[in-house]
């Protein structure tokens, strides 16, 4: 059975967005690629059920939950901070430099807070949707978002990029 057109279109349209989200979540593009591939395979295995529903929401849940499982098994800080950014803290100008700053800032967050930041501010989900993806209560999302933004405000390079008010 050839890949149905609907599946091909869906994955071609969503794969990059899922990978970018997973990259922010993990801080590791290779791991992100693995997570997205695994989620896509699970969608393919259930395509008959998912095609008329919300395959992207399902894939996102798989990515975040698989990563949570991976992280818990690893039992250590999820990712190391990427290479240090310039010591003079010149404002980054290229996307690569911005990525270094962003990933370094996100790496200071515990896994749960990091996931909430990515879902809320990158994937643009509502608090309720983020709660569903992560399988936690609405209150947990609110409190983790609040704490995460407070931590990010303390990250000088990120603060330079977005300004303090944007982290409130």
């Amino acid at each position, binding site marked *: *059975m*050839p*890949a*149905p057109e609907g*599946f*091909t279109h869906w*994955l*071609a349209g969503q*794969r*990059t967005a*899922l*990978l*970018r989200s997973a*990259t*922010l979540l993990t801080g590791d*593009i290779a791991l992100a*690629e693995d997570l*997205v*591939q695994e989620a*896509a*395979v*699970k*969608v*393919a*295995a*259930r*395509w008959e*059920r*998912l095609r008329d*529903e*919300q395959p992207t*929401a*399902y894939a996102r849940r798989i990515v975040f939950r698989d990563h949570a499982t991976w992280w818990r098994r690893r039992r250590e800080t999820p990712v190391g901070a990427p290479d240090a950014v310039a010591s003079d803290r010149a404002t980054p100008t290229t*996307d*690569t430099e*911005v*990525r270094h*700053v*962003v*990933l370094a800032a996100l790496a200071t967050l515990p896994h749960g807070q990091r996931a909430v*930041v*990515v879902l809320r*501010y*990158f994937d*643009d989900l*509502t608090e*309720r*949707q983020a709660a569903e993806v992560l399988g*936690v*209560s*609405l*209150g*947990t999302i609110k409190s983790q978002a609040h704490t995460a*933004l407070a931590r990010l405000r303390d990250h000088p390079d*990120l603060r330079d*990029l*977005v*300004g303090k*008010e*944007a982290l409130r």
Partner: protein
Amino acid sequence: MTEPTLSDVLHAATRDVESHVDPTDIWYAGRRRRRRSAAAVAMTAAASVAVVAAVSAGVAGLGGSPSPAPQPVPTSPTVPDLTVDDTATAGVVGKDHLLPMSDPADWADLPAYPRDLGYWLSPERPTPLAEDPVTRATTALQYDLGGDANVVVIGDDGRWRWIDVSDHDLDDGDGGLLGLHRGSLSPDGTRLALGLADGVVVVDLTTAGTTSYPVPGLGASWAGRYAFWSPDGDSVLMSRGYWATGNDNTFAYPAGWRVDLADGEVTRVPFDPEHAALLDDGTVLANHWGVATGHAWERFSPDGDGAPLDISTDLLGVLNEATGHEDLVVARRELTARWPDRAWDRGGFVALDPEGEVVSMLPVERVDLNGGGGRVIGWIDPGVVLVAMPGAGGNPLVTLAWNVATGEQWRGPELLADTVVSLARP
């Protein structure tokens, strides 16, 4: 120039990240996995119930006539006051209601329940139901064997029967199973209602015959299918999870469906059966919840008339898995906040009267904020409810029989966390 937002920066940081995963490769990987999974499930099932011969599909009758498209009946949740009303007492647990804390670590020290409830960790040499139907069943269980459902019942003779569900696709599309839910065994123990993607199938346990009833509009199967018997046994109420009902701030417990078993007619009910207690006289205590409205309770008379019920739960403890019998309702109580002046308060299981007044509260270690894995199983004798909680090692769960009036507690069967149980009415 406007400062970039956090969202802007997150997008900029990944702008040059591109995925080139090949949809065709992924598709075939998914197909291969599906075939391997099916093969593994078949082997697991064969090994687990090797003593069970394959049985015929039974009477795959389609007794229910096709139903007209259901007309949604709007729920009428009242907008609750999200602050605690000092004058409201319903639903508010006081210190006086609290029994001593129950610790699952002490479960083995409890006396065994005086009546044998059976061994629930695995089926004991089940006989195909078609070869040996029951007069009535006391308990129904669904075991998840790696994605394959094994549905069994314990007859009132104490012996196990295996239900052939091979004609019904119970895959929920999300790695879980549809089928049995806690309200699936009929009150008299003679029929079983299994939720399917497109409706419900009712198994007559006295004959092994089955009747399928389509329920239009159930939507995404990964949101689950929950079947509950009406106390009179004349109809099955269907529900599904709220998480497939919206994609923004509109999430709410959905209105359920009523399937009249006499003619297969499907109508909507103005409450979510998953979040309602069905009392023997036809009264329903329903918890409406929505992102915008919070929790609000409503009592429906046997005639269907609804009236708001002033149960204050939002800030003190959310009630879930409410189950009624005679004039009692027991629910799992999940604390959502710890208040400084209520430091003594705990999660666990709470008993209410039909007015929502608290009768008693059984606090349980680790069944605390957001539930902690506790479950309400059902009533095993008048006034005695069976609840489950993670055991000392987490899984299996341990069950505890609680006499609501006297506070007495007994040790019940152990239960694997992914096993679903439904009990007939005592």
